[in-house]
């Protein structure tokens, strides 16, 4: 019995320009503090920032998802708390405070147990050899609010729905029985299990804000101004321009066939160096690696970005570069006529 999914009348979407992400995690903190402080999801980040190339969060998550590279359903896996998510650390605050003044000895603040893995464990590691071709970039990730959500398809209780009015994918926690097929099936691993309340939990695209015309917290708090929020079909908005007009914003792992509605402007990178330290024509981040993340269209997108950037350097006009520079930050967010953004 397959579910019949009515197409959404509108679809919210986000574009993230990876050339501007500085890995500060402000987006993650904004999201976590706003929505996700329950003990049962202490390990969970609806929004997180990964260093790529890297293991990601949860570690090697693409290996445990419910889709093959050709978009077919395969049995996924619920990630393990310790080995894949990384358990939230606890610290020796009490003993540090107790020992210092009285005894004159110092106990330094440290985790109670030796950490072995965590969400930013391989932060800034990247790949390559300094100084010739070392490289990494930051990849912020959140629920893609897919057009064909694997999580919705996976729930035997029908506890996940996609809102017709804006395409936001939500878990009805009153209906959820904590079976975790959604966690298993999502190839992006962006549905989490609240182990205390025993229900699934995921990004809600800050829907109470979106309903008031205010962009999600992860986008509004981004110091790099790298996020754009709007409706997918708004031809005057930044999403349409970046995704459909300029074709420089691409979904993550389009091969899964789920129709993600979060898009990324792929990162350009400095040239590799030869043995004498002279720049080579090849960028440091291998194009094949970027293709493995964003699909074959990444080459064309990078060519467009390079071309427009050169135009701007020559002093010529470039609407694309002006949009990506975000001179006018208000233009990054366009959620309709009722917008009440106060910037």
């Amino acid at each position, binding site marked *: 019995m397959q*579910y019949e999914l009515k197409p959404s009348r509108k679809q919210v979407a986000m574009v993230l320009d990876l050339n501007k992400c500085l890995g500060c995690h402000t987006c993650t903190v904004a999201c976590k503090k706003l929505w996700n402080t329950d003990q049962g999801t202490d390990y969970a980040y609806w929004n997180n920032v990964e260093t790529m190339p890297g293991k990601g969060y949860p570690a090697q998550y693409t290996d445990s998802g419910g889709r093959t590279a050709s978009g077919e359903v395969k049995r996924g896996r619920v990630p393990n708390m310790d080995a894949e*998510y990384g358990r939230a650390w606890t610290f020796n605050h009490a003993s540090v405070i107790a020992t210092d003044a009285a005894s004159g000895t110092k106990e330094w603040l440290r985790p109670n147990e030796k950490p072995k893995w965590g969400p930013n464990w391989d932060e800034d590691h990247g790949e390559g050899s300094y100084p010739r071709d070392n490289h990494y970039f930051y990849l912020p990730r959140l629920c893609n609010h897919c057009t064909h959500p694997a999580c919705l398809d996976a729930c035997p209780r*029908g506890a996940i729905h996609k809102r017709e009015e804006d395409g936001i994918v939500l878990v009805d926690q009153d209906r959820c029985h904590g079976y975790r097929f959604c966690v298993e099936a999502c190839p992006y691993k962006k549905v989490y299990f609240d*182990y205390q309340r025993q229900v699934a939990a995921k990004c809600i695209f800050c829907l109470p804000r979106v309903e008031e015309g205010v962009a999600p917290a992860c986008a509004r708090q981004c110091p790099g101004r790298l996020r754009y929020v709007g409706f997918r079909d708004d031809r005057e908005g930044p999403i349409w321009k970046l995704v459909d007009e300029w074709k420089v914003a691409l979904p993550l792992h389009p091969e899964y066939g789920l129709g993600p509605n979060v898009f990324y402007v792929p990162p350009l990178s400095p040239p590799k160096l030869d043995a004498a330290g002279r720049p080579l024509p090849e960028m440091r981040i291998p194009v094949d690696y970027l293709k493995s993340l964003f699909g074959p269209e990444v080459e064309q997108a990078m060519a467009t970005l390079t071309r427009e950037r050169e135009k701007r350097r020559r002093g010529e006009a470039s609407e694309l570069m002006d949009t990506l520079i975000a001179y006018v930050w208000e233009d990054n967010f366009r959620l309709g006529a009722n917008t009440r953004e106060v910037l």
Partner: protein
Amino acid sequence: MGFHRQIRLMVAPPAMQPGGYVMKAYADRSEAATPAVDLRVDGSERGGFAIELGWDCARMQGAAGAQTDRFVDACALLCPLTPDAPWITMGAPGQPVEAVYWRADRERPWRMRAEGLGTMQRGEAPPGWSAQGAWDAGRWRVRFVLDAWEALAVQRRLGVAVWQGQHGERAGLKSVSDTWLPLG
């Protein structure tokens, strides 16, 4: 009134599961993780029942704790609320079923009601219902004491389902009796 039988169980067919994922991802499930249960039913003339289920379980999963990928052992007894309620789909619209569900990490059982797959609603069991499980030497024994279960007293048929957490069983991933079992 009472009987004691060993009941063969079958794997609940993944092809019937709602949604598109479970039926495909688990299409290869053909062997029941719990091939058989011992079922003992003792009924009183006042409509109460003491029902005991026993099954082999090599690795007990009694609690999930602060883990994401651990599933807990459980079992359930189902009873039709109408004479024609189908078993394998847990009822159908207008043909409800009722269940008592024990899970190893809970003190009290749940009382459940469904009208087809994916429609199960669970609530606290009446005060006179209890369930206690004990695992010993690779075997679970779960004893339900139900001071009154009107549905069973009237319909006099039961279905049995068992979930083994060690095999990731939950929801439709379970071993079940192949039909309603008459009380005799």
